[in-house]
């Protein structure tokens, strides 16, 4: 019985972890091309989900709503490139980080101004009924989310593996001035990547929105993604998945088996502490690029 429960917690944890990965991937995309932690990812997520839901609530069919939302994410991506990234090219990461914070205010404000502050339900038509495998309960919705995440990672990995664009991305993240000097079109790369991050945000926003309801708190799921990022490495898509699995499992197991001894509620920080402990052994995460420095 006990092992069954353990398995259940473990599986539940792994599957929640995949949900974190969904969010983390958006961060990875941006980090890979600008070396910056994009704090607006949460706001993008909120904006995407809110736009989609509000459009469907106004009677649009699902596919049209998706298309319109995608268009909106493209516009946002292009706008961010033009108004924020281009003028701040070659600035230190901390400045860009702060700028993304500013961007997140704008997007959050715009989302709520546009669509209001109501809480919306979102039904993707996927039942969340428990499936039982040998006495272990597994949520069908979580399996669906895992499949979505898997598909997304596969697509992105293939993209990076089989196009030379990936190399350009890394070059941009490494040294923006040199990237300009060799003729990489930072504007195009950034627009593309931010749009892609917007698409990832839409997917993550829909999956999370189906679970939390579409509301302001949606933007807080990024806090779950950050330990995943440091654990997997900021610039690794595979890291986002593996990191998510580890974080999810650690978090749930700790809450269930350690929580009761310290009063519970440790999920909020245990992932960070675990990630920290891990970083002390590998300072750039599981799959993150190592810092290259010599004198």
């Amino acid at each position, binding site marked *: 019985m006990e092992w069954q*429960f353990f398995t*259940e*917690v473990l599986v*539940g*944890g792994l*599957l*929640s972890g995949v949900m974190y990965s969904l969010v983390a991937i958006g961060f990875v995309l941006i980090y890979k091309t600008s070396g910056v932690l994009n704090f607006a990812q949460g706001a993008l997520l909120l904006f995407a989900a809110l736009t989609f839901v509000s459009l469907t609530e106004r009677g649009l069919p699902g596919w049209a709503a998706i298309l319109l939302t995608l268009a909106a994410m493209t516009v946002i991506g292009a706008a961010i490139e033009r108004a924020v990234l281009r003028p701040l090219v070659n600035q230190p990461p901390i400045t860009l980080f702060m700028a993304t914070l500013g961007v997140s205010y704008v997007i959050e404000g715009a989302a*709520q101004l546009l669509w*209001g*502050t*109501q*809480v*919306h*339900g*979102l*039904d993707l038509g996927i039942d*969340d*009924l*428990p499936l039982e495998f040998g006495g272990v*309960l597994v*949520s069908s*919705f*979580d399996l669906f989310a895992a499949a979505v995440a898997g598909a997304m990672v596969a697509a992105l990995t293939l993209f990076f593996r089989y196009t030379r664009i990936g190399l350009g991305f890394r070059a941009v993240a490494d040294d923006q001035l040199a990237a300009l000097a060799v003729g990489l079109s930072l504007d195009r790369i950034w627009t593309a990547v931010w749009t892609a991050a917007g698409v990832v945000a839409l997917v993550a926003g829909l999956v*999370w929105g189906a*679970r*939390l*309801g*579409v*509301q*302001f*708190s949606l933007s*807080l*799921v990024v806090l*779950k993604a950050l330990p995943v990022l440091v654990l997997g490495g900021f610039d690794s898509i595979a890291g986002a998945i593996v990191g998510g699995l580890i974080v999810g499992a650690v*978090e*749930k197991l700790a*809450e*269930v088996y350690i*929580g009761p001894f310290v*009063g*519970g*509620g*440790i*999920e*909020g920080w245990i992932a960070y502490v675990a990630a920290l402990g891990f970083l002390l052994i590998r300072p750039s995460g599981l799959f993150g690029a190592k810092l290259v420095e010599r004198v």
Partner: protein
Amino acid sequence: DEQYFPLQSYRVGPYAAGGTGFFGGFIDYLTLVNTRDGGVNGVKLTWDECETQYEVERGVECYKRQKNRPGVAAWNPLSVGIAYAMIDDVGRDKVPLITVNHGRTDSTDGRVFKYVFPLLLNPYSESSGIVNYIGTREGGLEKLKGKKIVVLYHGSPYGKETIPIYQLLAEKYGFSVEQVEVPHPGNEQQSQWLSIRRTKPDYVVLRGWGVMNPVALKTAQKVGFPADRIIGNVWSNSEEDVIPAGDAAKGYTAITTQASGADYPVLQEIAKTVYGAGKGNLDDKKRIGSVYHNLGIVNGILNVEAVRIAQDKFGKRTLTGDEVRWGFEHLRLDPARVEALGAKGLFHSINVSVANHEGEGRVTFQQWDGAKWKVVSDWIAPDWALLRPIIEKSSLAYAAEHGIQVRDPAAEDASN
């Protein structure tokens, strides 16, 4: 003459849904009184809003700004944190501070907290009301013996506040209680619910906040825990808490001090007079009669009636805050008066006194049927005999710590 209600509202941020509903209802009622009656005995009601985003510092800033306008009747922040930060100031400025359905439990003892009013319900009587309701469902309080109840609470001071009282109630009625924390904001509850599934409790009491509620309901469904055995507390009882959970919320039951629905005469009037004239405060008319909106309306009734009662004593003019405080301390609305106000069934009655700033409010329970809330219980009273001593112990300790002279209710009533 004007009577001014400063509103430290929040329409942005994580708790915007509650804020728009509550302050919308409050404003709608004030508007109704102004348009229908020309104010309270000719004294016009005014208000303005100051956005706090539910943040304490912003609430403080609003307080300092808004208090300078003359004719302040009462403060209604709808935020524990802001209320705490104002307690000193309202005492000095002598204006009542209304914390309907929430706030500092021991401020129920008006002998110590002269200007603070946790009207309708404080966290302790809420907990007691929930246990009493479970008792009635089981067929009597004595049937609680041997039952197992899990309290799933939000990882914040608000969530933790009732831990001791549930412990006490468990001892008294012989059920076992396990209290499980969900870390803020509560968007992940897998482990908590798996533990609950293992514990196999008879009931889960949901003491949630914001996004934690729909997630709890969804996760419960995921682990196969039936929704009708989950009992929500007063901040887990709104449409916003259940709609995002979809079908998972069907059958979920929650406490309330005021029924939802728009069938009550006062709401009909608001819909007609206020919204009909395009002066309604809610953007979305569908939300008329929702839980937060109705709470705002009830809060409006209580404020207005307190002013009215005070006017009876002090004259039909702009009152000082202290005079309004007197009105609140004599706020007695029996069911007949409630009916006269067009709110029969919307809330039960209230009976505030110097010693009791809560007002013995009764609660009822409503169940979500997938589209709306349906009342499923009578009006239930909390266990005052159990609670009052604990409250007094705490308030007297506060008085000692802050050098406050405890008032003597008998003497006060005699002097008035």
